[in-house]
Structures are given as C-alpha cells and as structure tokens.
C-alpha cells in the first residue's frame, strides 16, 4: 500500500507531528478567534455613524490590519521576533511559532468579523436602540447573534488558513505535519510520506469544514 514507509519508525513520528499541528492550530485559532472577534467588533463599532464612533481608534486598528494582512506569513513571523520574545520568551520553537500564528489569525479574523457585522441590518440595531438597549447589550444580544452564522463560517475559514500556516512551522523549529512531510518526505525523496500527510490534512480539513457548515446552518435556525 505505501511503498518505502517503515511504519514502525514513521508511525510514532506521524503521531507526534499530528499532535504538534493540533496543538499549534487549536491554540492559534482559539486566540485568533477571541482577539479577532474583539478587534473586529472594535473596528465595526468605531466606524463612522456606528454605536461607538471614534475616528482615531478606527484608523489605528485599520492601519494595523492593513500592515499585518498583506505581509507574507513567514516574513511576519520572523519580523514579530522581538514581540514574540517579549511574550513567549523565545523566538523559535513551537510556542513562539504558535504566537506568531495567533497574531496573524487575530487580524485576519478581525477583518472577516468586521465584514460580517457590517452586513447586519442597521434597522435591527436601531430597533434595539429604540427599545432602550445599551451598546454592550446590543453587541451581545443583537450584533453577534444576528451575524453568528457567517461568523462561524469565518472561523472555519480561519481554521483552514491557520492549518495552512502551520505547514511551514519547521522553518522556525516548530515541527508539525508540514515539517514531517518536508524533512522526512520531500528532502529524502520519499513521496509516499508526503502523500500520507497530504491525505491526512485533506481529511481533517474536510471534516472541519463539514462541522462548520453544520453549525452555521444551525445558527441560522433554518
């Protein structure tokens, strides 16, 4: 079935690498999801004409996102070095790399969150204001519930994007499935290992997307 693979040696390596990828991806998505939601809300609320309109805050957030998003991830991960050292204590290794992924994920998700919130009907927000709801209540009970379905889809998208980022973890000493495919597969001309990893990733991403779609449909209540 898989020529050229010594499963006794490769099996545990695959298992460890999968564990590392799971660790990196889940932490980065959790942190990215949370901070992305906060930053995205901040961006939306401080927009002109919105609940907490504030030009300065909006401009600052907007500029940071526009710096982070177009920068290729591997360059950003390196450039973040000093910040990473301050927060994690090191600039290479799995935790340092996870931090860089979390930062990138936060700003990527922030933009998605902002776009999803913009599509919430302003009339519904006005109705809540007319009932005497405070901005904080409107965020919790109107904005997020009304945008929940696309927010879940956005988070699914983020999870897949972060999985993609995690593949180059090896460049900063973080390990993971991508590193395994490159060091033990590609560089040793063992294509079977590359394809086993690819197959594993495809199955995982398909599964995540299916769950995301299902949750999003449920959130829509249809």
């Amino acid at each position: 079935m898989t020529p050229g693979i010594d499963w006794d040696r490769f099996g545990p390596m695959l298992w460890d690498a999968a564990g590392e990828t799971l660790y990196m991806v889940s932490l980065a998505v959790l942190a990215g999801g949370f901070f992305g939601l906060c930053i995205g809300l901040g961006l939306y609320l401080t927009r002109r004409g919105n609940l907490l309109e504030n030009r300065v805050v909006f401009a600052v957030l907007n500029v940071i996102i526009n710096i982070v998003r177009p920068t290729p991830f591997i360059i950003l991960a390196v450039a973040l070095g000093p910040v990473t050292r301050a927060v994690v204590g090191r600039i290479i290794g799995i935790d340092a790399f996870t931090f860089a992924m979390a930062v990138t994920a936060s700003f990527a998700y922030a933009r998605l969150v902002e776009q999803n919130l913009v599509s919430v009907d302003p009339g519904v927000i006005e109705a809540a204001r007319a009932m005497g709801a405070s901005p904080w209540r409107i965020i919790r009970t109107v904005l997020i519930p009304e945008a929940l379905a696309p927010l879940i889809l956005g988070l699914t998208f983020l999870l897949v994007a972060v999985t993609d980022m995690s593949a180059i973890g090896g460049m900063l000493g973080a390990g993971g499935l991508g590193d395994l495919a490159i060091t033990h597969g590609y560089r040793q001309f063992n294509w079977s290992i590359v394809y086993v990893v690819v197959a594993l990733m495809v199955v995982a991403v398909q599964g995540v997307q299916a769950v995301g779609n299902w949750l999003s449909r449920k959130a829509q209540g249809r």
Partner: protein
Amino acid sequence: MPAPIISFRDATKVFPGTRRRPEVRAVDGVSFDIHAGEIFGVIGWSGAGKSTLVRLINALERTTSGSVIVDGVDLAGLTEAKLRPVRRGIGMIFQQFNLLASRTVAGNVCYALEVAGWPRAERAARVAELLEYVGMAEQAGARPHQLSGGQRQRVGIARALATSPRILLADEATSALDPETTRDVLALLRKVNRELGITVVVITHAMSVVRDICDRVAVMEQGKVVELGETYSVFTRPQASLTRRFVSGAMGDRPTGDVLAALRERHPGRLVTVGVGAEGSAPAFRVLAEHRVSGAVVFGGITQVGERPVGALTLELEGAPADVDAAVVGLAQVCDVDDLGGAAHPVTNEEPR
C-alpha cells in the same frame, strides 16, 4: 384642549456636510404639540425630514438646536444613559419591521421585556398576552422569515407594546404592505389607540393612511411643517399647495390634465367642480334646481374622513346661459366651486387643488 404629550420647540436637526455633500437641515425650526391620546400623522415626500422628526421623539437623533419635550421631560438635556429609560416608554415600529432573524416571534417580543429588565418568570405570560392581542399567538414559535409582511408588522407592534408605552411611533409602518394588509395593520393601530389609550405618531407618504386613522396631521416639506390641522379640515380646505397635491392625489376626485381634456370632449357644456362637505351634495343640487339648471355628474367621488363625507363632483350644467351663470354664483355661496368653463371657453386652472 388636551395636554400635550410631545412638544417640539423650534426643533432643528442639521446633518453636517462633508466634502462631497452639503449640510442637510432635515428638521428646520419646527414647533408644535402632539396631544395625549390622539393619532397624529406626519406626511411628506421622501427627504422631507419626517423620519428624522419622529426620531427626535425617542432621541435616536438628537436636536442640533431647540428642544423636544416628551411627557414633561426635555430630551435635549439628557445623556445617552438617561435616555434609555425614556426610550422604554416609547414603542416604535418600522417600514422594514426590523425583527431579529436570530429569534422566534415570541423571542422577538420577549427581547423588549429583557431590555426593560422584566423578571424572567413574568416574561412568558406577557409575551403570550401580547401575541394574543395582535392575533399572532399561533405563530409564536415561527421565525420572522417564515411570516408575511403583515404578520411581521403585527409582531413588530406586539414588541413595541411590550413595555406598555404611552407613545407608539410608526415610521412608514405600512409602506411595504399591500392595500389589504395595510388596512388590517391600520385597524390594529386604531385598536391600540382606542383600547390602550396610546398616543400614536404615524409617519407616511400616503394620504390614504392619514385619511383612515389620523385625528390630526402635519404636512412637511424641506424640514418645515407647512400645514397642520385636523384631518377633516385639511382634506376639505387644504391650504398649502403641497397639501392640495396630496389631497387631490389621494382623492382622485377632481379632473386634471388629460382626464379633463377628455371630459371636455365628451361634455362640451359648462363644467363646474363642487366640493362636497359635511352636508353632502344636497345643497348644491338644491341651488341648481332653484335656477332651473340641471347638473349631470360627469366625474368625481365622495369618501369619508373621520366619519364625515369629503369629496368633489364635477357637473355638466344645462340650462339657459343666464340661468347657468346665476347658478354658478349661487353655488359658490353653499359650497366650494371650481368653474372649469365650457369647451368653447375653457377655464384652465394649472394648479391642482
């Protein structure tokens, strides 16, 4: 004179301009009172400032200058946090209904109670009572997207009434509905006004809505109130030219333009349009009879406003020319007359009225 529940005092709202567009004086020095317990209409074309005006009442928009006094409280002096309890005493319904898609019908009505801080245990009973009142009890578990426009507006009304407000603001509440559903929703608003004593402020661009439910009406144009009065007198004696256009558009009882031209072709005799007021058309026909002139109705209509007749009839007068002239003079003493002349000597009145 009933006490005012809402008073505008030189209220002005200016939206500042930007590089691309000039500033807009959406509401421009408006002063008038809305009485407790009445259904008050505000009519005008889009952009006349009526939506902004109604938003000054619950301070969704703040006045630039002047003041709005609601239930004795001057809103201009209140902070956003102090305004929230005031808003809870004012219900509002919208053209696009603005229901939460993420909640059921019952959940939407319940939302207003949650915002108002009702104890959890008392909410369900109140929601059931409200849905019963607007005739939506059976759809309590449905989602807004499963309902028709009229049903959604009923839910909007239930939600607006949840906290027993003294004032209900209806912003183009029937503009997205078909005529039959409009009648149902207007009937519900009248019921709310009569049974619960809630003051209703109706924003509309349809004179038929004013005719059907409003006690008094303000006509707005370019941020100013150009006419204000009881609905019946506005219909029977409109003063401003905008009001005349609204009334004639709604009534369709006076021939103008092509219609009048076609009418002259078919009826070459002397045409006069007589206004029909509280006494009906009898006085006009009595005058004709006295002058031995017969009048055939060739155009017109009579409807009811506030349970009194309103309308106009266009008559083709036949008789000796001197008698017809005398009859027209006589008519003017008993009713409003618009002499259109005969086909040979037409009198053109460019301004519709």
